[in-house]
């Protein structure tokens, strides 16, 4: 048996290589740099890296290559999603870098290892320690996501999944305030996440058993050529989908979402909510279209069910939420359902509309969480919706911006969300899923209730004594908030440039 060393297209891999190397360097920074300069060095390193990688992605965006022995596919959609992930990661990173909002430092615990409320923690807080390990985590997570959307075989996809998830598990547990909630979120996220990836892996094993290969190309070939018996294949697909549905937070694999969103530090929640959705949907679509396009009729009905469940359960439960972060979590479940409508379409138009939806959703979400991180009271962030009453009078600008995000999520015209919704719905209709679309429209109306309820509360209710106050942030949050708001509106009024870029990207290569 002889081995051939894989050929690697270094130019195409450059963005990921950059991020990976930077991640390792930032670990070394943690090791060698004295505490005083760590934060500064890390910030410089992280943002130069992300921007550099983004530039490389843009330069590469013409390439359509399969590299690493077919295990990595860098095609139009991959570039778009990598670019989106990088931009969203930059905005999310800005939120994580915000140090001016919490009187005692940034959003993360001074020492994640110190016992909450213990003497140690008090000391660390007083000395103003910062947990700068969050930056290597961010970089590794981003690397995982970039790999996730580009991975073209099951092994690569599994590795990417883990590289993406492990840092996020840890980040979720590092909140400076409400440590108990934060740690609980981390534990739940980790246990359930590991559980789901076990399913993914076993599914991969079954697929390998069926097709004799882990690469998508051969798998789809096997599906088209092999006659008869394919139970093994279907069970395998099912278990792979469990892993991915978990990541996109689709019903019935959604239950971690509210708890983690609420418990994790708000900047992390924002970053995670935006980027992981992009990455997971990218992987899901590549898997379904490239590897399992041959059995489309089998998984389509399944996606129907999951999409409908997600839309309805998400929108309905969100109505009775009293914590804004939980509400947005359920909203993200519902949004996952809406996006699935576009995925079911399984057409180039569907792919394009999903990509647009993901972009619009990402910016809106980051912006929304940026606002949440600013609305505070004595005990930290005022996440109870009650405390937002009359915010429109106390700080009209922030309230207005938040309203824009809510309207976009609700799909009201002239926001990115509206175009996105119409895109996926139209794709679904074009693919002949009219009934699914009708359910989606109804669900989106239910959803409008709770989005608008926040607006109504902010504007048509009078401030109460315990109405939260808006903290004036430093440049970091301001930039990412402004970017989020501007893009949300711009995508609603002049979406065409983005739509053109997506259209030129074409479809997944095989």
């Amino acid at each position, binding site marked *: 048996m002889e081995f051939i060393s894989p050929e690697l297209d270094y130019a195409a891999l450059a963005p990921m290589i950059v991020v990976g190397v930077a991640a390792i360097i930032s670990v070394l920074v943690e090791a060698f740099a004295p505490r005083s300069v760590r934060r500064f060095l890390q910030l410089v390193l992280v943002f130069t890296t992300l921007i550099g990688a983004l530039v490389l992605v843009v330069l590469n965006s013409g390439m359509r290559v399969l590299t690493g022995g077919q295990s990595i596919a860098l095609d139009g959609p991959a570039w778009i999603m990598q670019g989106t992930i990088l931009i969203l990661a930059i905005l999310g990173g800005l939120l994580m870098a915000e140090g001016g909002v919490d009187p005692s430092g940034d959003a993360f615990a001074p020492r994640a290892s110190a016992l909450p409320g213990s003497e140690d923690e008090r000391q660390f807080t007083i000395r103003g320690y910062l947990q700068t390990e969050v930056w290597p985590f961010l970089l590794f997570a981003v690397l995982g996501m970039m790999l996730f959307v580009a991975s073209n075989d099951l092994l690569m996809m599994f590795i990417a999944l883990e590289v993406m998830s492990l840092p996020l598990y840890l980040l979720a547990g590092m909140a400076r305030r409400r440590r108990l909630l934060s740690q609980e979120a981390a534990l739940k996220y980790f246990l359930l996440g590991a559980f789901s990836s076990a399913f993914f892996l076993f599914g991969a094993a079954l697929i390998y058993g069926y097709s004799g290969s882990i690469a998508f190309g051969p798998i789809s070939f096997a599906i088209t050529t092999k006659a008869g018996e394919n139970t093994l294949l279907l069970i395998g697909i099912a278990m792979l989908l469990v892993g991915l549905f978990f990541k996109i937070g689709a019903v*019935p*694999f959604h239950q971690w979402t509210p708890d983690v969103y609420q418990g994790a530090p708000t900047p992390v929640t924002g970053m995670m909510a935006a980027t992981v959705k992009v990455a997971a949907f990218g992987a899901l679509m590549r898997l379904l279209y490239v590897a399992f396009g041959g059995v489309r009729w089998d998984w389509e009905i399944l996606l129907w069910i999951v999409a409908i469940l997600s839309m309805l359960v998400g929108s309905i439960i969100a*109505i009775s939420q009293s914590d804004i972060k939980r509400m947005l979590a359920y909203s993200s479940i519902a949004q996952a359902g809406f996006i699935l409508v576009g995925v079911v379409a399984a057409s180039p138009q569907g792919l394009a509309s999903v990509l647009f939806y993901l972009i619009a959703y990402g910016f809106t979400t980051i912006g929304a969480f940026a606002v949440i991180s600013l609305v505070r009271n004595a005990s930290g962030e005022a996440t109870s919706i009650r405390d937002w009453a009359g915010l429109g009078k106390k700080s009209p600008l922030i309230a207005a911006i938040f309203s824009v995000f809510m309207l976009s999520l609700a799909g009201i015209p002239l926001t990115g969300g509206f175009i996105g919704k119409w895109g996926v719905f139209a*794709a679904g*209709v*074009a693919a002949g899923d009219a009934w699914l679309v*009708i359910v989606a429209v109804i669900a989106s109306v239910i959803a409008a209730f709770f989005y608008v309820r926040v607006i109504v509360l902010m504007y048509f209710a009078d401030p109460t004594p315990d109405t939260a106050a808006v903290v004036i942030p430093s440049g970091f949050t301001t930039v990412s908030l402004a970017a989020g708001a501007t893009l949300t509106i711009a995508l609603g009024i002049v979406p*065409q440039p983005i739509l053109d870029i997506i259209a030129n990207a074409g479809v997944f290569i095989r």
Partner: protein
Amino acid sequence: MTEPGIFSLLWVLIALPLAGAAILLFGGRRTDRWGPYLGVLTVCTSAVIGVLMLLGLMALPAEERSITQTVYSWIAVGSLQVDFALQLDQLSMVFVLLITIVGALIHIYSLGYMAHDPDRRKFFGYLNLFVAAMLLLVLANNYLLLYVGWEGVGLASYLLIGFWQYKPSAAAAAKKAFIINRVGDVGLSLAIMLIFVTFGSVTFGEVFGQVGEASEGTLTAIGLLLLLAAAGKSAQFPLQAWLLDAMEGPTPVSALIHAATMVTAGVYLIVRSHVIFDAAVWAATAVVVVGLITIFMGAIIGSAKDDIKKSLAGSTMSQIGYMVFAAGLGPIGYIFAIFHLLTHGVFKAGLFLGAGSVMHGMNDDVNMRRYGTLKGLMVITFVTFMAGYLAIIGIPPFAGFWSKDEIIHAAFERNALIGVATILAAGITGFYMTRMIAMTFFGKARWEEGVHPHESPKVMTIPLIILAIGSTLLGMALLFWGNIESWLEPVTGFASEPTPFPTWVYIVVTLIVVIIGAIIGWVMYARRPVPIEAPRGSWLTRAARKDLYGDAVNDALVVRPSFALSKALTIFDARGVDGFVNGLAGSVGAISGRLRRTQTGFARSYALSMVGGALLVALALVLVQS
């Protein structure tokens, strides 16, 4: 199809008020001083451009009177190709004129009416926003863009209804309007989806071009959904509940949005989609029924309310009922629906502004039982109000006579029974409008002490005068000089059917009925003294005072069952929205309250549901395998 000369300014028509709104709303305090005047200026300019375009359009031969201007390609993803394109044809033209001219007058009037309000800058910003959105609605050349305007006018109207937020009733009314309208909007979005499914396009031209290929079932469904949308915006049965509460807003708003323009958007939608309704008989019939029911509901409510604005609101419902009804009659009615819409827009705006002027003089008291014998003290208001009065009850030669008479005639062309019904409704109109002027301008003074009625300033009375002139002449002008029938025919088509009697018979009969109604009203409210405390009145009166139990019915049907559960929705929001809104939201909220308990917080139970889901997924795949 090109856009020669003046028509290249089509987008400016919308851009001007939009820019005004932007400057006023984001400009902050520094625009307080000159802001309102800017608001007035933008709308007046739009009005001028509108008039120029009318001249330009008249210069063109009839078949070329449809100009499309593609501003830019808005959405183009796969089979969904939508341009941000404006279309000016005879139908849009008349709406543009109505919106800009009436809008301009009401802006001017507001300068006086809102003179003392601290937030007048914001008020004018909202008004400009509304005008922009409404223009977009009527100028859009596809359903999706129309939907944008549709939501826009909605938004503006909620903001303006709730403008005086410190009044809980205002905030509640705004919420109620919003949520009831959402129901209508579902109808519209579903309709657009269905249209897109059926025709693969949402552009008016392309859709209407291929209506023939669609099955009647589909068209009926689309028609009914469009009707639902129209009912929501135009306060037609069964979604009428919000309009009366909407009177919480400042009076100029009631005049502009809730009488002249926005509430007629439903009529526009139906007439614009007439090709669909022509092909779907049942949908058209439904339109007629809804219109007829609303005509009477509105009239009866209008007869019982003592609040002058709510009484006018009732009459608005009733008059829009006439338009919807006419639109349902098909080609014999479309033109007259629009005709009545125009005249009504003018004289009802006049009446509302007149009412506002009266309130202005009476320290914002709205209770007609506290008015009386104002005719001597507010001469201009009185005279202009009389013009509107004669117009709405349809006395020749005033505007309302021509348009309403045409609708009644059209009704007889279709079916004598509904014809008689419309005549009766006209009689009731005569009754409640007479009651209104009798209680307001005649009889004895029943004022609160300390009230010193006085005429309003010029800036308010001049618009009244202009509108009064309109209420007097517009009907004849449109009919004889502007011959609206041949003007609109290319867009809406026109047909006429023979009726058993010559036209003059209907006219005379209608007049007799109206005058009888008016006399009854006069005898009851001008001759006899009007008690300050409202008498118990007949069961009908009592019912009508409660908006004919519009809310109560919803309450009994939906709210009560899910009342306890609807708490779940209104946890933090004590001022829940009344009517079926609570019911609707409540029942969803109920399910929500149950569902959220599934989120137990135990990681292991989450895992269990994941395994369950996994097996579900596996089974689904294996069992349905093809």
